[in-house]
């Protein structure tokens, strides 16, 4: 580190003419695309100043160590009430930060109605609504009870859940079973085919899969995710490869004995034909990796990004379990035929845990196909990944992306970098109809609201 030992390589921050001079004199130099940190807002500059120091470096190094060393495995399946004590009784867990019925968006309300019918607490929509209005149904965010669920993410006591554990840090996370696309509970649909499918998942799929997992033994999830990433998945809106890799792993252990061939085929096809089947497992792995990084004093790493269709919420390691929320934005959507601008609900789901971990939009470069789905080009996908490198602390080589020279995915969103660069995290997402009972309307791209990050750094800076 001695200054006088050799010709220094110089990083230029500010006047571009100094960089040009360095190049002209033949020096080894780089320049950054500088703009006033925090958009030049004095209060934010002050907060950012307070958040620079060795204590923050050390805390973030611990957080990075936690989420990179985590090794999530699929252990077993259970009913939700067995996994989460808080779900005993008339209780429902949902995606995103806490929210009361009155403020819930259409798709979340729809999913709540569906879950109540599924549980048999009411027979129809109007009964379900009056039950909720009576105040008898307790709501809680999945994230606060060790669970995650995509879109509305509603998980009720007798829904089967996967159990994912990270034995390195002693973390357990649960997630529900993905139902497919179209008219499904998680997009707010609750018609009879939705309830019928949920019953089938509980009665046929669950016992068979549970047994298969027990026979196979724990399934390591990181290797599947890493391979899938190199096969064109970004593990959020595209899980085609991961789903098939998972099926290849667990399918041979599904026992035919005692089950008619048609039922066996149904189970295998349900997984094989649902390109998002593995999403829930990616998400549980994502939460299992990030939970050990939460609660480290002075760490500025974002450990949760999540939305409930009304509010967008984040958690930051150094601020523990506290949610920082702002209104959820409406994604820029590529609509399925028959739907149009105005049908889209604001952003919803726990699935942004994927972006929190460096997947989804952060890994856009790995998934040119998704880039097209969300309405842009392959080069735009690479650009988004490169932008996300600007707000994250590491490129995790356990998850290499071929299209950016096998650099790792951008992990460890630093709330300081988000505020300083004014670059909000990008999120790939499914989009629900804003009214209850309808379902999926398309796929989209959205950016997290800056306000959450600004409030978090203000609190961190004290």
């Amino acid at each position, binding site marked *: 580190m001695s200054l006088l030992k050799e010709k220094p390589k110089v990083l230029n921050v500010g006047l571009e003419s100094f960089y040009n001079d360095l190049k002209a004199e033949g020096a080894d130099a780089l320049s950054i695309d500088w703009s006033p940190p925090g*958009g030049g807002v004095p209060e934010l500059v002050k907060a950012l100043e307070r958040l620079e120091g060795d204590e923050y*470096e050390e805390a973030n190094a611990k957080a990075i160590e936690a989420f990179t060393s985590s090794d999530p495995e699929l252990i077993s399946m259970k009913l939700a009430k067995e996994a989460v004590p808080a779900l005993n009784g008339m209780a429902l867990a949902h995606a995103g930060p806490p929210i009361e019925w009155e403020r819930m968006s259409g798709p979340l309300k729809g999913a709540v109605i569906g879950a109540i019918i599924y549980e048999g607490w009411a027979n129809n929509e109007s009964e379900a609504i009056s039950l909720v209005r009576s105040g008898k149904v307790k709501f809680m965010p999945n994230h606060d009870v060790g669970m995650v669920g995509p879109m509305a993410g509603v998980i009720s006591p007798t829904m089967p859940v996967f159990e994912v554990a990270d034995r390195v840090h002693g973390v357990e996370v649960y997630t529900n079973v993905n139902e497919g696309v179209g008219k499904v509970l998680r997009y707010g649909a609750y018609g009879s085919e939705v309830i019928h499918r949920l019953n089938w998942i509980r009665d046929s799929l669950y016992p068979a899969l549970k047994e298969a997992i027990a026979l196979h033994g724990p399934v390591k999830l990181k290797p599947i995710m890493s391979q899938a990433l190199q096969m064109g998945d970004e593990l959020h809106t595209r899980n085609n490869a991961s789903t098939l890799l998972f099926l290849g792993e667990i399918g041979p252990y599904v026992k035919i004995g005692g089950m008619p061939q048609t039922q066996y085929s149904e189970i295998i096809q349900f997984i094989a034909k649902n390109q998002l089947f593995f999403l829930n497992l990616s998400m549980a792995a994502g939460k299992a990796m990030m939970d050990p990084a939460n609660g480290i004093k002075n760490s500025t790493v974002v450990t949760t990004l999540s939305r409930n269709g009304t509010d967008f919420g984040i958690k930051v390691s150094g601020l523990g379990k506290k949610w920082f929320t702002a209104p959820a934005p409406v994604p820029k959507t590529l609509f399925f035929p028959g739907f149009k601008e105005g049908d889209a609900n604001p952003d919803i789901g726990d699935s942004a845990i994927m972006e929190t971990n460096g997947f989804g939009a952060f890994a856009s470069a790995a998934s040119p196909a998704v880039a097209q789905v969300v309405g842009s080009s392959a080069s735009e996908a690479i650009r988004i990944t490169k932008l996300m490198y600007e707000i994250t602390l590491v490129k995790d080589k356990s998850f290499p992306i071929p299209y950016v020279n096998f650099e790792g995915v951008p992990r460890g969103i630093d709330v300081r970098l988000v505020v300083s660069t004014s670059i909000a995290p990008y999120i790939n997402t499914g989009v629900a109809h804003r009214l209850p009972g309808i379902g999926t309307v398309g796929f989209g791209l959205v950016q997290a609201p800056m306000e959450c990050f600004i409030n978090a750094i203000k609190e961190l800076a004290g």
Partner: protein
Amino acid sequence: MAIKVLILRNQYRDSVFLMRINDEVERQEGVNRAAVMMGTDANKDLMKEAGLYVKEVDAAGPNDLVIVVDAENDELGEKALSVAKSMVFKAGEGEKAEEVKHKSVRSAVYDSPDIALVLISTPGEYAYLEAKRSLVLNRHVMVFSSNVPVEKELDLKRYAEKKGLFVMGPDAGTSIINGVGLGFFNVVRDGPVGITGAAGTGIQELSSMLHNLGTGITSAIGTGSNDPKDSIGGITTKMAIRAFGKDERTKVISLVSKPPGKNTMPAILEELEMQGKPSVVLFLGYEGNRSSGKIEFAEDIEDEAIRAYRLATGKHAERYDVTKDQRLRLAIDGLSGDQQYIRGLFSGGTVCYESQLIAKRHGRRVYSNAPLDNELYIGGFDESKKDTFIDMGDEEFVRGVPHPMIDFRFRRERIIKEAKDKEVAVILLDVVLGYGANADPAGELIPAIEKAKEVNSRLVFVASIIGTDMDPQGIAQQEGKLESHGVIVYPSSAAAARAALFVAGRGSL
């Protein structure tokens, strides 16, 4: 008349870049005036003063680019706006859509761990943050930016010292680290002299003179103007002295600054003594030091260069003897009876200060916007009185305008103005070459010198030139240009000052 406004949200560009566009827009047909600047409060004030402020600008923030055009009519105004806009975005040309440049020190250092030093030239209010970030990431920093509060400077320097890192600056104009020049600097040979100091132009002149004498430097470490004050206590100066002490190639240590604070001066000298290397010190304007042991004290930069040269090479060099210069004799012969005063118009703060010291030694009281004595203060834009030396790099001149080493407009105007005063005998100038400076300073000055001579053909021009044959402008070319227009040029600011005094004193010094 039509005022046209365009606000480009979130399009930060640095002010030098925008000034170029401003200039181009003002050249457009039918454009009276224009303002192309970021929407900071300071810039808004400037627009108000210029009468170019309109209500729409209220909504612009520091990250928004504001373009205001005062044109003959709507059509020409719109045309000028579109020219401005296309120039703003032209900068991004050649970059493919997927190319993302690093936006922060952190990501740049992550991808290029071999970065050793971060050069910071952002507006002052952001410089502390960028510097602290760089230090946290274990990189040396040079802060060119000024207007960093002294308590923040102290915080940076204490933190850096604990980590063994250098903070050069804030307000450090010049450093050369192992041949890599930073900020405003001249291209000089490698050699045995290690330079450190708080005086930017002083370091430029000292390193250039050593080169011109035939030797060179190991490195030059600019400390920033506050470092030797008691508020900072010479943290960087002392670190630099220690580094040169340890550095085997450094045979002579040379220090140049204004006199350090009362408590800091002995600490700096003690540090220097402890290195046991021959050293030359120039505390500009301080007469209280006596050479002892291995430390010699110089009286001006020329003197310092000659001493350091002798210590480094064992060879002697002579000071310029202006009294024997035939050019000056001729100039004196041409003066009219009224001509008796010197007007110094300087781009280098150190040169302005040193020239005042030399004038004082020769019994002249010089008025200045950066005076030796508060009694002699006059504003930079005030009418000159008797002998007046103006530091045109002073804050009042550089608000929203590039440094006078780059932009010569104020100096040109001032030269012509001074020429109209019949009592002026000599206009004394400094011409600084090197990186960071204008590509052709002589070419910038000559039109004004020509005009001044039309006003008063008896006016004498004396200039010092700070630079080397390795500078992009070339010292010989610049000297030649100036001399062909009758300017008497010296490669030493002290010599130029003495020459001016000699002429104004009609042959007595």
